[in-house]
């Protein structure tokens, strides 16, 4: 086998096997360097994979040399490549920027464990994405979940602990629901491989278990993905996590669960079960719409910067689900694009928050007065990413809004009212982003009155700006993610092989 053929396995193996090595790297800084190297390596692998699947080919890898359905197969197609890009990209970028911020929030002797957990999280998420085996997805889902519990529990504040405990409980329930669903499908089809399931599920006569399985899997993954109203774990967890962890997780963790949801549903169920498309729409569409509206409204009145952004994530997850709920090629394209673009925007925003945290211990909006004077570059980056979140043309966020609206209009009768929902929530986004902008730029500095110029450390600032510029770049030249998103849609609903 050539090196290129090994890439799908290496995507998981590289960060995973680096983790134990990191634990051994006790001297300060070395653990970070090792983890960053591993993160960058896996990002490079993801890029190589994306290039390899651009022409519509699927990279298949038989683990242990055992072909599916007997062994576990890894498959990388356009959709997985897109999600891999954002997972590894977010992981690597956040690691690259993490050092100074983590030094302030995690004691040096705990850092090797922290970075090891980070790499495990990265490996787990990547493992979910590349896997083509339902049970294997569960295993890697657990790796990534455990890792994210650890990372969030590293939060400096004691409130991180109850938050992460809630996440742990809800996450475990979600994973177990998924496991029950997979068990029921396995019971009726005798296989765990997704493609094999797709092929065999049509032959199942007794549909009760399959329907219940679909319900369990959808709800379990929706829990993991923080789909409204199952999102209650998310705002606190993201708020109290260490800043860099928020960057990493907010950019990709929930999206991977959504990825599995979309892939599982459209591959296994929608293809063969009559009426399932309708049922899926019936389930997902109202939740998506409610999530968008409710979470956006909550965000408008939220006073804490991080929690505001975290709440907005719930709304953005609604967008992704909304696209998927159309069960059309345009819808999936919009969904996939929004995954990518939201990761860019939210990642950038949280990076800027991490910068701000260097001089503002309290991240409530009311305490951020004078920030623009002290940290002009950080604030400018934050504004750029905020505009992308709103969906201003010229930024990445606009592309996905455009696709989403087009998909909504194509979806028929309710199209215009859905467009209205999208637009109204965009305006709500204007409101909550502008509350941040006004706090940063126009609010009087608090009593301490230190208004000297004091930017965040260069390393962090550079990464923040790189992400901010990517938001603009992908708003003008979105060809790569768009090609992958179109490929995914063709794969999932277009009936292409």
């Amino acid at each position, binding site marked *: 086998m050539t090196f290129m053929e090994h890439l799908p396995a290496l995507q998981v193996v590289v960060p995973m096997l680096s983790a134990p090595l990191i634990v051994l790297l006790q001297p300060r800084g070395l653990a970070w360097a090792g983890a960053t190297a591993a993160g960058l390596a896996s990002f490079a692998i993801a890029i190589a994979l994306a290039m390899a699947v651009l022409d519509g080919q699927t990279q298949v890898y038989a683990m242990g040399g055992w072909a599916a359905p007997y062994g576990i197969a890894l498959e990388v197609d356009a959709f997985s490549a897109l999600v891999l890009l954002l997972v590894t990209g977010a992981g690597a970028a956040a690691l690259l920027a993490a050092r100074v911020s983590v030094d302030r929030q995690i004691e040096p002797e705990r850092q090797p464990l922290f970075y090891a957990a980070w790499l495990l999280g990265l490996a787990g998420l990547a493992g979910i994405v590349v896997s083509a085996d339902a049970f294997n997805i569960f295993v890697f889902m657990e790796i990534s979940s455990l890792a994210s519990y650890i990372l969030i529990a590293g939060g400096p504040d004691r409130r991180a602990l109850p938050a992460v405990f809630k996440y742990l409980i809800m996450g475990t329930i979600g994973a177990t629901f998924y496991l029950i669903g997979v068990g029921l499908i396995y019971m009726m089809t005798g296989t765990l491989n997704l493609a094999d399931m797709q092929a065999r599920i049509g032959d199942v006569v007794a549909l009760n278990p399959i329907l219940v399985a679909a319900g369990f899997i959808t709800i379990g993954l929706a829990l993991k993905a923080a789909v409204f109203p199952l999102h209650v774990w998310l705002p606190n967890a993201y708020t109290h996590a260490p800043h860099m962890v928020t960057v990493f997780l907010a950019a990709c963790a929930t999206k991977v669960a959504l990825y599995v949801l979309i892939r599982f549903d459209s591959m296994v169920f929608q293809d063969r079960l009559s009426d399932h498309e309708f049922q899926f729409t019936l389930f997902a569409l109202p939740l998506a719409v409610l999530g968008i509206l409710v979470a956006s409204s909550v965000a408008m009145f939220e006073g804490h910067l991080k929690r505001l952004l975290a709440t907005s994530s719930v709304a953005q997850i609604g967008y992704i689900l909304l696209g998927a709920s159309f069960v059309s090629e345009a819808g999936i394209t919009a969904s996939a694009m929004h995954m990518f673009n939201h990761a860019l925007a939210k990642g950038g925003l949280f990076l800027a928050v991490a910068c701000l945290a260097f001089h503002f211990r309290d991240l409530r909006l009311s305490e951020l007065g004078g920030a623009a004077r002290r940290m002009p570059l950080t604030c400018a980056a934050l504004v750029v990413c905020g*505009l992308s979140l*709103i*969906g*201003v*043309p*010229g930024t990445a966020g606009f*592309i996905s809004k*455009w*696709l989403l*609206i*087009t998909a909504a*209009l194509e979806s028929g009768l309710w199209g215009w009212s859905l*467009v209205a929902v999208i*637009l*109204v929530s*965009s*305006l709500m986004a*204007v409101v909550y982003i*502008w509350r941040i902008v*006004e706090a940063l*730029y*126009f609010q009087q500095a608090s009593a301490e009155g230190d208004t000297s110029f004091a930017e965040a450390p260069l390393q962090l600032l550079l990464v923040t700006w790189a992400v901010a510029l990517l938001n603009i770049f992908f*708003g*003008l*030249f*979105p060809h790569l993610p*768009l090609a992958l998103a179109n490929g995914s849609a063709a794969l999932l609903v277009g009936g292409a092989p």
Partner: protein
Amino acid sequence: MIPETAILTAICLPLAGALAIAVAGRISPNLREATTLLTAAALIWVVWGLLPTLMAGGRPAVEVSEVMPGLTIAFRVEPLGMLFAALASGLWLINSVYSIGYMRGNKEKNQTRFYVCFALALAATMGVAFAGNLFTLFLFYEVLTLSTYPLVSHKGDEATVRSARVYLGVLLCTSIGLFLPAIIWTYMAAGTGDFVHGGILAGKLEGPAIGLLLGLFVFGIGKAAVMPVHRWLPAAMVAPTPVSALLHAVAVVKAGVFAITKIIVYVFGIDFLFATPSSGWLLYMAAFTIITASLVALRQTNIKRLLAYSTIAQLSYVVMAAATLKPLAEVGAAIHMVAHAFGKITLFFAAGAIYVASKKTEIHQLRGIGRRMPWTMTAFTIGALSMIGVPPTAGFVSKWYILAGAFEAENLVAVFTIIASTVLNAAYFLPILYMAWFEREEAGAKAHGEAPFAAVLALCITALLTLAFFLFNGPVIELESQVVRALPL
């Protein structure tokens, strides 16, 4: 310079200028302002260099990126855009001269941010002017909104921030809530958003849908300030006067009416729209705005707010002219953009000069000010006369064309509106002139002279331009006639 390169240069130059200004601002104010002037001058050279090509009938175009299939960032220069770009770039230079006087005279804070954002706004204006399709237009339209926000909120105190919130809120709400769906609708119906002579929607839509789409466009383009989406314009008056002068008399508001005109001419096509009964409401809406805004202006006591409402009325002239859907009126719409720009920028310059010299902002304070500031008030008088439409000023020329178009269309509402508004214009401007020149100053008033030289110089130039346009408008009319030449005149 090759026209294609010139287009891109015209957009990138102010961007590069903004960067240079930011850097220069860290070194010295003189260098910063020199950079601004240099950039403005260079921009004029680039933009005006395109004129001969246009006069000769050339339509240079360039495509930058195909963002999504069918959705491109592309530029195409045509007479309307050329006129707008030439106007904005030319006035930027004069405005920069004025700004230097004003900002220094007032000892404003954050001057670097001011000049940087100004340059960014100009880049966006160039983008709007040269946009070759709806998407590109929308892109730069939004950039223009966002880059002017820091200018409006420049002062930074609570009242200003609240007004700036209205400014941004109205403009973004309308553009995201109405303009964007209209664009997407157009793309879905026509399969393209390119500006094409004769429109792209003929045969693609029918019945009331056309009127609805037109409504989405007109109210979505909040910058045109057609009532009831005009609220942002008075709110924007909290900005420093150079901003009000160039942006809220020229660049931003003209971007709005320009976009509407362009959409009517190149997306709907005037013939198609004329044949559609459901689009008639636009003219009445514009007429209503003209009259109402003029009436509101009558009651204003603050100079800048009066000018703002006057602007709202004058903008609707352009919209009404465009909505008359007759070739002469379309030419009139284009010319009125120019005429109003010269006149209104003069008025704002004058108002700013008065503020710098005497800190006066209210109309009743202007008694006898003509004797203290003769240059400024002469310019103000010329500007006011142009607003009313008295010869020999620019305002007369454009009103003439619009009126001619209205007669051609046999639209009595339009004719009546023009006459009535002329009377109203006179009713709110003439008392000010009378007060300034013929009444006595209140006793015990503080003595003051003219504003700084740079400011006075700028407003004299624009006043002269207002007069000059009455005499030398041939090339402009010839250029704009190209917009409708394919149609029977």
